[in-house]
């Protein structure tokens, strides 16, 4: 008897907890991120919500696994494919693991758009925030401005195996050639994506080159480690540090002047751009080179062929922020 009552209670609980009405007329675009509930993807969700609000005829939602596990993301997408949403905008945790389900989704008539996955074969469009070489050059331009266009500088990468980091460092080196006074020394130090390793490496370099004036970082911990080393050496004012970093993490060092600039891309705009591309594909609008997606940083996108059936869409959505502007980005 008690058992029956408990069962009934659960039944009502389920119905109560999930009493959502599914709107059938709207096109549903579901964004699936690597992991739900972290600042980076909360910021991306703002873009998804903005898109849903400003676009009639579209229901845009975001979801993601509770744990950072490619298998959980895969299961989530399997269910969404079974549910037959109209479009999926995916930020893959491991592009390889999703090839199978992305293929099944496309066979079922679902539009598939990805982000940060230019190696993904089964996607109709992969949205990249920027071209790697151009981003590296932009970081370096900020560095050379800070250095006054002359002096010794060096670059850091997470690891030499990290393709994007190496492209950023090379793009930076190419840009530095424009300034005759910039001298690159000991390029591409490996920080192993570890702020402590970056700190130790930076201390070694400060010892070896006491007159070094600039550091360009790649991994998000690089500027943190280098900034700490520079601050401890009392060189905050004389040395320039610019690199990829998150505003929330680099705030203290930006305020103290140890770090002079950070580069990143705003996930909110990436979310907007992904959903916009999904909508274009749903409307069967061709995506062309030089197109304006109507999203900041994606006003004149480069479109090229991807590794599989789809295209790669490259924006210019990188942001270089300094002490006066980083507060605009709450993530």
């Amino acid at each position, binding site marked *: 008897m008690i*058992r029956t009552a*408990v*069962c009934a209670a*659960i*039944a009502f609980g*389920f*119905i109560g*907890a*999930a*009493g*959502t009405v*599914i709107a059938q007329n709207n096109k549903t675009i579901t964004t699936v991120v690597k992991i*739900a*509930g972290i600042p980076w993807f909360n910021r991306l969700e703002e873009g998804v919500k903005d898109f849903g609000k400003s676009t009639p005829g579209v229901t845009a*939602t975001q*979801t*993601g*696994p*509770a*744990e950072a*596990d*490619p*298998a*959980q993301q*895969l*299961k*989530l997408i*399997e*269910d*969404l*494919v*079974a*549910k*037959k949403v109209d479009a999926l905008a995916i930020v893959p945790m*491991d*592009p*390889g*693991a*999703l*090839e*199978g*389900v992305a293929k*099944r989704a496309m066979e*079922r008539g679902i539009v598939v758009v990805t982000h940060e996955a230019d190696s993904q074969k089964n996607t109709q469009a992969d949205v990249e925030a920027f071209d790697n070489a151009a981003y590296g050059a932009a970081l370096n331009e900020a560095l050379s401005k800070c250095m006054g266009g002359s002096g010794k500088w060096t670059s850091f990468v997470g690891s030499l195996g990290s393709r994007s980091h190496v492209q950023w460092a090379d793009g930076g080196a190419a840009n530095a050639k424009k300034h005759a006074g910039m001298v690159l020394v000991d390029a591409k130090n490996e920080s192993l994506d570890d702020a402590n390793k970056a700190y130790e490496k930076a201390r070694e370099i400060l010892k070896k080159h006491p007159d070094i004036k600039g550091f360009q970082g790649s991994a998000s911990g690089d500027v943190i480690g280098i900034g700490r080393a520079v601050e401890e050496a009392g060189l905050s004012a004389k040395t320039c540090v610019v690199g990829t970093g998150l505003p929330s993490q680099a705030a203290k060092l930006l305020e103290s002047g140890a770090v002079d600039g950070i580069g990143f891309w705003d996930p909110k705009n990436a979310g907007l751009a992904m959903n916009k591309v999904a909508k274009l594909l749903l409307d069967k609008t061709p995506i062309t080179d030089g197109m304006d997606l109507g999203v900041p940083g994606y006003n004149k996108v480069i479109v090229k062929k991807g590794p599989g059936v789809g295209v790669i869409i490259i924006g210019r959505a990188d942001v270089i922020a300094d002490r006066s502007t980083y507060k605009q980005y709450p993530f």
Partner: protein
Amino acid sequence: MKAILRDPQLNFLVGVNLLVLLSATALSRGQFMDPYNLQSMAAQVPELALLALGVMLSMISGNGGIDLSGIALANLAAVAAAALFAPLVSPEDAPVLYSLGFAGTALVVGLLGGLLNGTLIAFVGLPPILSTLGTQLLFGGLSVVLSNGSSMRVPSAPPLQALGNGDLLGAPVGFVILVAIALALGVLLKYSPFGVRLFLLGTNPKAARYAGLPQRRLLMGTYALCGLLAGVAAVLIASRNLSVKWDYGRSYLLIAILIAVMAGVKPDGGYGRVICLFFSATSLQLLSSMFNFLDVSNFFRDCAWGLLLLLFLAMSGHTFKTIGIGRLKGPALRTNAPPTQNPPASSSHSRG
């Protein structure tokens, strides 16, 4: 038939399955019952259910038996097959040989890993939780070495593809394999000398030793079976995703244990039913898919799983109490129990 209905565990689990299926169908306006969705869910169950079967076997063996290395071993088996076997045979020229060899390599690696666990536990005498924790790290490390830490593509061949994505009379092949394995294991546990002895060993290891049961051989067999199950999971993962990675499914470990505990497998050993485990696995899958269908956060899903487990424990609470009392009366009482799969306290269920 009456005997089947008398197991409250099974009734509870089947009830949960039906309840979730019905409420999900009602809430999604029938969409949930779409054949595609049923197939999709059936295709998702096997990897986890196979690993949970391994956890169940190790728990039944008693003496703190548990297998924490399941998913790590499955990943190692898949990575080893992709890294060591796949380059040897061309999937285009010899698709059948390639597929068989790929699956064979994964199964052999799984078996070897299981034998290693068995050796550590049965012969070296390490506690299962520590030795499988150790091998979990070892298997993970080996997969990183073999794959360089990145995900590896598995070249596809039609037979391998059929395994991962094909249907057999409308049911996904992986699901059919799971059902076949579950049936075989059920028969093995219930009717073979191995199964009967394993339950005895789990119920009271000391009495089992004095009765002259080949303890080491039993443990060895149990963990070898666990490894083999991980190998089968590896083949299914590789054939479905066509990509393998050392840290795939790192959340599976705890979910597999959750499935086993919810199926009423006793962590102290000596009791566990394959059919309960099967329905326990499907109920979690149904619940998870329902939440995904209704756009409910994945965090809530974890919370619901936890609630379900607590509810289950509360409902079987008096069973655990009776077992506790039985233990106070002395172990001799428990060893006298017939070697069936029912817990010693099963008689108390029929009253409820």
